[in-house]
């Protein structure tokens, strides 16, 4: 298989076992098998704390799998590669850098000359609608604006693979819908493959081509659903379509069971 036709991401029997501070072993994910094609938008949903985020850190190269293989563009992942972009759940903008300098950080880290980095950064800032804010510091922006900075800072690197770890979960509902639409617009031009982790089923169906349902922790892939809603989509209106509701019901049947298991376990722990 040549590198050009190989899928963007492949996980083959990947497991991740952490050592807990008390010396025990904690299996975050087990025997993950998942293939994500080029340009595909895949959402990963699962009960809280089941290990969805670990999947992303394995693909990003921030962590190595304890067992199995992770391939990006047909090559095994060794350390953080230059193909990957990552939008974190928490704020990860550099508070001591201005907005422009934050967006320039990626290209500068990769050795792009300053003037060129500035030009690219301004272009992306304009695309996320923050051109007028380039001299501000992150603390002077709203949560939604900071997320936009994070998006621009990620997209400016032209990632082939975009990993998103509940990126909009800290935002209020209206901002969230707005950001989801913006994300779809930004992504449409890039041809990047996206893995979007969320615990919000609605969000995942509205955004993705495929929804992957994970089991209760230690997580593995339970089921994969194809979302056949036409693009371009608008998050607010697509969720009112009958087909959307149909899909929602279908996936929830699968996901709800895992959520129930997690909840019962939590109750058992408390008792």
């Amino acid at each position: 298989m040549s590198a050009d036709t190989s899928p963007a991401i492949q996980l083959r029997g990947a497991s991740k076992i952490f050592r807990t501070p008390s010396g025990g072993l904690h299996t975050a994910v087990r025997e993950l098998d998942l293939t994500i094609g080029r340009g595909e938008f895949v959402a990963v949903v699962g009960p809280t704390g089941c290990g969805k985020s670990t999947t992303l850190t394995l693909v990003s190269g921030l962590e190595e799998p304890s067992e199995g293989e992770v391939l990006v563009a047909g090559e095994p992942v060794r350390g953080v590669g230059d193909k990957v972009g990552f939008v974190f759940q928490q704020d990860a903008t550099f508070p001591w850098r201005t907005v422009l300098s934050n967006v320039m950080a990626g290209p500068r880290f990769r050795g792009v000359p300053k003037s060129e980095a500035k030009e690219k950064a301004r272009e992306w800032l304009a695309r996320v609608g923050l051109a007028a804010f380039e001299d501000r510091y992150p603390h002077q922006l709203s949560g939604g604006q900071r997320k936009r900075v994070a998006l621009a800072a990620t997209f400016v690197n032209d990632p082939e693979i975009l990993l998103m770890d509940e990126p909009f979960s800290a935002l209020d509902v209206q901002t969230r819908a707005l950001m989801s639409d913006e994300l779809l617009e930004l992504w449409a031009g890039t041809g990047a493959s996206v893995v979007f982790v969320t615990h919000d089923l609605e969000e995942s169906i509205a955004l993705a081509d495929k929804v992957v349902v994970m089991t209760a922790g230690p997580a593995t892939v339970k089921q994969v659903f194809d979302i056949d809603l036409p693009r371009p989509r608008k998050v607010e209106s697509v969720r009112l379509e009958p087909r959307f509701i149909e899909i929602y019901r279908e996936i929830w049947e699968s996901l709800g069971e895992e959520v129930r298991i997690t909840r019962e376990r939590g109750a058992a722990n408390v008792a």
Partner: protein
Amino acid sequence: MSPDVMPEAQVALTMTEPGNKTDRAHSRARAARRRKIAVMAARVLLLVAVLGLWEVFSRAKVIDAFNFSMPSKIWDQVYAWVMHGTAQGPLGEQIWYTLYEALLGWVLGVIVGVVFGIVLGRITFLADVLGPYIKVLNSIPRIVLAPIFMIWFGLGPASKVASAVVLVFFPVFFNAFQGAREVDRNLVANARILGASNRRVTLQVVIPSATSWIFTSLHVSFGFALIGAIVGEYLGATKGIGLLISQSQGTFNTAGVYAAMVILAVVALGAEGLLTFAERRIFRWKPTGSDS
């Protein structure tokens, strides 16, 4: 008829409302101003009362003027030093010597402390190896090293600089170390994803986020540097404010000891002011709410 009246009533309403508001804002501002003046007046009054009582008690022989001196004598002493110089040369020279020793010791101590702190904060192996030794060294009251430095480096500024360095090093080191350890893991992960090498992570993520930790220690440690320089001079020197103190003490010149203290306080406050100014410039990126 009535349609004509209505708008007028509305106009009247909108006219009075902003007027009311500015009135209230006015009186609030006036109250704040009055409070500020009251605080200042009370401060001045307190100072005058303390100094006045001291002077009066001393003159009335309620307290021993020889041991406790009095503000007027201290003032005379400062005046005499300023106008006619001290026994070992002009006052400016003494201040400059002490300041020079303290500053040099401070800068060296800060540099060494920050470098060690960041390096050990980043390289866990080194931190684990050196940890216990640093704890032991830190437990020694470091001012007792001053006599040894005197033997090693002689009466000149070098021995004072050395005692200032050892006093400054530890607080700066511990803060830099802590700062490097407590860097937001998300920021480091983000920088790595964006393509930063290990060196860049250290220079552009760890050091900037440790700066607020380091700066807290800078305020304290400048005081320590002054202590190091003064104690060093007190033990033996050819110039400096510490020498002024020890000579005043040697001649039972209580006013001289106090006068040197006054001069030191002014110097320390000036340095503190400069540091705060620098801090404001560097931390422009911080929300002003968290400024103390």
